[in-house]
């Protein structure tokens, strides 16, 4: 009971830190901090509430495989998306007939 209450308070505190950080101008760090805090919150939920830290290694393996697969797909997609210029496509005028 105490342990879960403690982690619940920690999650709420992280939520408010995340909220507060978005009102401070930090350039690219705003997004990085937002996602890092979300990652920390998700890890706490997975490790404590979902009992991943105490459960069998097989479950951690499944979770890690899913995340690794996602990172792989994002990385491979990035080969295209991250290198694609953002110029609008040239407009081809309609042929007058």
């Amino acid at each position, binding site marked *: *009971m105490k342990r*879960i*209450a403690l*982690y*619940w308070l920690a*999650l*709420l505190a992280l*939520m408010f830190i*995340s*909220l507060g*950080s*978005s*009102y*401070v*101008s930090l350039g690219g760090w*705003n*997004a990085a901090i*937002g*996602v890092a*805090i*979300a990652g920390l*919150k*998700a890890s706490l*939920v*997975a490790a*404590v*509430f*979902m*009992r991943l830290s105490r*459960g*069998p290694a*097989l*479950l951690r393996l*499944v*979770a890690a*495989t*899913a*995340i690794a*697969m*996602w990172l792989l*797909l*994002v990385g491979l*997609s990035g080969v295209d*998306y*991250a290198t694609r210029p*953002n110029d609008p496509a040239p407009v081809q005028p309609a042929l007058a007939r």
Partner: protein
Amino acid sequence: MTAHSAMHPGDFPAPRRAAAARLGMWVFIGSEVLFFGGLMLAYLYGRTHWPHGFALASRRTDVVLGTLNTALLLTSSAVIALAVHKRQAITPLLWITVALGAAFLVVKGMEYHHEFTEHLFPGDGFALAATTGAELFFMLYFVTTALHALHLLAGMGGVSVLAWRRLRCIEPMALYWHFVDVVWIFLYPLLYLVERHS
């Protein structure tokens, strides 16, 4: 037992069945990670290519209601974790979880109502049509939050059945509930907290 008779779940001892159910739910969650992961990739592409449009559009989301909803889901996760870990007062804790989920959906509905009246739903007459990327942001906003809400609704149905029938194998459903919470944990900064300062 002859070689031809099929094995039934009841042939296995309860702890083994529980372990199999947990593993099954984790594999399902793994597939869900990739389901929402595709949308996250689409978001990443949009945000890196039209940062200005995404920041402008994000400032039009309701950060108070978004934060309230984050708190509601974090609390619901703690409540259902309490039911799983303590194995006491399971039925009331499950009903509280469902109630918190319902409260989340009511708040989400209020947000949607504001956004529809402010013409933030993509399409004809979109309020921020002049800014490139803003409409894409709101398209992703509505797709991800609606899919999340559907998942939450499914979770509320599942948890209600467990509470109603007083079933005691609640851990797989609780894992699913936590996963839906984790999806929201990521949606919260991505949708509500893009450059609130400017």
